C-alpha cells in the first residue's frame, strides 16, 4: 500500500456513558466505557474495516467521529484538503457546516427512510437541512447522485415503500453522497440485505469509492464482508483495539489470540474444510466493569498471570501491524489459508 495522506487522525479517543441511579437526583454511579482509549489514523481513499463482537464499541467509534455523540476525551482531527480541522473542538454552526463532509449509511434500509417523503426529498434532505446549495441546484444534484447510485431517475417521485431492499439501500447511499462527503461511515450497511443483493451493494460502494475518492470506515460483524472491502482492519474488544493491520497481514498472520478466535469461527463455504473454532470461554465482559490487565484474559486460551495483572502495551510488532498482547512475539497463531 502506498503512503497516502491522512484524512483522519484519532488520538486516545474515549467515550463513556454515565450509569445513573433512578430518581430525582440521577447520581452517576459508574461509566460504561464504550470506547476506552483508541488511537488510529484513516488514510485518504482507503477503507478501514472495524470488526468485533456486539457490545465492543464499533458503532460508538463511528458515531463519535461523526460527532453524533459527545466524546469524553481524546483528540480527533480531519484533514480537509490540507486544512487540519479539530473535530473534537468544533461545535454549533461550525460543526453543522462541517457535517457535509462526513456521512453515515445505516444498517436497515427499511427503518432509515421516512415513509412519508419521496425519494427525491429523502436524497435532497442533507442539502436542504444544511442549506448547502441554492434551491435551484438541489434537483440537479439529486439527479446526479441518483444516477451515480444506479437509481432510476424516473422513480424519484415515488415513496420508499415501492422499492426493494437493495434499491432502498441505494437510496440511503445516494442520500449520504449528495453533499459530496469525503468520509463515509458504513455501519453494518450490507448486513440486513440478502446475499444476492449484498454483492451488488458492495460492488457499488467500491465503485463509488474509486470514482469519488471516498474514504470509508466500514463497520461489520461479518468478517468475510469486511475482508472483501477493506484495506486495513481494526479488531475491537470491550472498547479497545486489540489488533490493527492490513487485511492480508491480519487474516494470514494474526498476532492476537482474539483475532485468531474470530477467524477460526468463520464458517467456510466448503464441506471439506472442517471448522475448528478456537473455543472462547464465557462471553464478552461488561464494558462498565472491564477485566483487569488485558481485557481479553478472561477468555484467552494462552492467558498467564501477567495478562491478569498488566495492561499490554499497544505496539507495532511489524511495520504497520499493531497489536496489544504480551505474548504476540512468542505465540504461533492460525490465520486463514490463502489459496492463490
Amino acid at each position, binding site marked *: 500500500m502506498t503512503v497516502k495522506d491522512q484524512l483522519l487522525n484519532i488520538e486516545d479517543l474515549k467515550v463513556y456513558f454515565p450509569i445513573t441511579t433512578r430518581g430525582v437526583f440521577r447520581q452517576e454511579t459508574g461509566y460504561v466505557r464504550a470506547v476506552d482509549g483508541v488511537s488510529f489514523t484513516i488514510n485518504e481513499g482507503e477503507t478501514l474495516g472495524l470488526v468485533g*463482537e*456486539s457490545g465492543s464499541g464499533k458503532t460508538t467509534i463511528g458515531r463519535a467521529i461523526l460527532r453524533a455523540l459527545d466524546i469524553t476525551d481524546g483528540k480527533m482531527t480531519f484533514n480537509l484538503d490540507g486544512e487540519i480541522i479539530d473535530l473534537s473542538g468544533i461545535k454549533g454552526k461550525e460543526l453543522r457546516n462541517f457535517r457535509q463532509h462526513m456521512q453515515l449509511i445505516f444498517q436497515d434500509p427499511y427503518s432509515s427512510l421516512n415513509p412519508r417523503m419521496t425519494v427525491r426529498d429523502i436524497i435532497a434532505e442533507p442539502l436542504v437541512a444544511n442549506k448547502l446549495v441554492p434551491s435551484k441546484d438541489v434537483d440537479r444534484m439529486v439527479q446526479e447522485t441518483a444516477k451515480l447510485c444506479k437509481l432510476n431517475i424516473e422513480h424519484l417521485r415515488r415513496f420508499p415503500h415501492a422499492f*426493494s*431492499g*437493495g*434499491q432502498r439501500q441505494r437510496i440511503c447511499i445516494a442520500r449520504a453522497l449528495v453533499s459530496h462527503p469525503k468520509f463515509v461511515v458504513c455501519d453494518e450497511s450490507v448486513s440486513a440485505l*440478502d*446475499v*444476492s*443483493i*449484498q*454483492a*451488488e451493494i*458492495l*460492488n457499488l460502494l*467500491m465503485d463509488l469509492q474509486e470514482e469519488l475518492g471516498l474514504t470509508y470506515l466500514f463497520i461489520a*460483524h*461479518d*468478517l*468475510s*464482508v469486511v*475482508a*472483501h472491502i477493506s484495506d486495513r482492519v481494526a479488531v475491537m474488544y470491550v472498547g479497545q483495539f486489540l489488533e490493527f493491520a492490513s*487485511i*492480508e497481514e491480519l*487474516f494470514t498472520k494474526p498476532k492476537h489470540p482474539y483475532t485468531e*478466535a*474470530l477467524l*477460526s*469461527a*468463520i*464458517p*467456510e*463455504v*466448503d*464441506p*471439506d*474444510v*472442517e*471448522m475448528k*473454532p478456537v*473455543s*472462547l470461554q464465557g*462471553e*464478552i465482559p461488561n464494558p462498565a466493569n472491564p477485566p483487569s490487565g488485558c481485557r481479553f484474559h478472561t477468555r484467552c486460551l494462552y492467558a498467564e498471570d501477567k495478562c491478569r495483572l498488566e495492561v499490554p502495551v499497544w505496539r507495532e510488532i511489524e511495520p504497520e501491524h499493531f497489536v496489544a498482547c504480551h505474548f504476540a512475539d512468542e505465540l504461533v497463531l492460525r490465520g*486463514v*489459508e*490463502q*489459496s*492463490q
Partner: protein
Amino acid sequence: MTPNRNIMTEQYNKQHVLAVKKLGVAFKTDEGIVRGVNDVSFKVPKGKTLGIVGESGSGKTVASQAIMQLLPKNGSIDEASEITLERNGLSINITSLKADSKEMRSIRGGSISMIFQEPMASFSPVYTIGNQMEEVILFHRDVSKEKAREIALDMLDRVGIANPSVRLEQYPFELSGGMRQRAMIAMALATEPLLLIADEPTTALDVTIQAQILELMRQLQDDLHMSIIFITHDLGVIAQIAHEVVVMYLGQVMEWGTTREIIKESAHPYTKSLLSAIPKLDLLHDRLIPISGDIPSPLARPPGCPFHTRCPEFIPEKCEIADPEETKLSETHYVSCFLYEEEDQNDG
C-alpha cells in the same frame, strides 16, 4: 405411496423421519392470494441434518411453520399436500390433523421441536427458565415433577450452561444472548424430539458464539440421534452443519442434494449465482458477481421458472412459459431447471 417425482430408493425411504410432499401454502392478503410455498417436496434423513437455504421470500420459514401447523390465520395448506412423520414405526400424516388436536399437540414441541432466531421471543419473560422447561417436560413426557426438574437440569448442563441449578431459578432476561440461545435449545430438546427445526438459530449471534452453538448442535445430534432441519441464508453455516441441502427460491425448490453436491457440484444457475455472490476469504479483493435484479414480490410471481427474471442462463421462450420438472442428476441430487431436462440435453 404413489409414484412421485421425488421418489428415491426403497432403502432410503425407510431412513427418513419426515417426508414433505407437494407442499403448497397460500396466504389470503388484502392484495390477493400469495403463494408462500409451491409444490415443495423434501425428506429429512434420520439422525442427519437437512439444511434449507434461501433468501427472503423463499418460503423456508413458511415450510417449517406448515410442518408444525403454526401458520398464521390467513394461511392454508393445499389439499394435495402431504407431510408424513415417521414415529414409532407409524406414519402420521400431519396435514390431516387439526392444529389443536391432541395428536398435533403431542407432535408440536414433543416429536418435533423448534428453535428460533430470537430466543427472547420463545421464552415468557414472567416465568423462570426452570418453570418453563418443567412445563414442557410435564406436558410431553410421563414423569413426576421431581424427575422433570432433573431432566431440565441435565439438559441445561448438556448445552454447556454453567451452574444449571442457579440458571433454573433465573428469568430469561438475566441470561446473555448466547446463554439464552443455549437455554432455548435445552428446552427444545428436553422432550427428546425426533426432529428439531432450527429457524436461523445463529443469525443474531456473533461469529464466536455461532461457532459454539453449531458445535453444540452437532454434538447433541450425535448423542440424541435426532434429525435437524436447519434453516438459514448463510451458505457457510450450511456447509458446516448440513448433510443434505434444499435450495429454495420464491417458495419453490430449485435444487436438492448432499451438501457436497450442492456446494461443489451445484447445478442450478441460482445455486451457482448464490455461491459466487458471497465474499470468500481466500480471494480477498476479487469483484463479487451479484445476481442481477431484485427478488420479485410474492404478489407478482413471475410465470414459468421463478428464477428466470434473474437467471444468467435464461432460455427465451421456455423458462418464462413453463415451470421445469425436477430432474435426477444422481441418487441424491435433483434439480429443477430446463438446462438439465433429459430430452433437451443438446440445449445444455
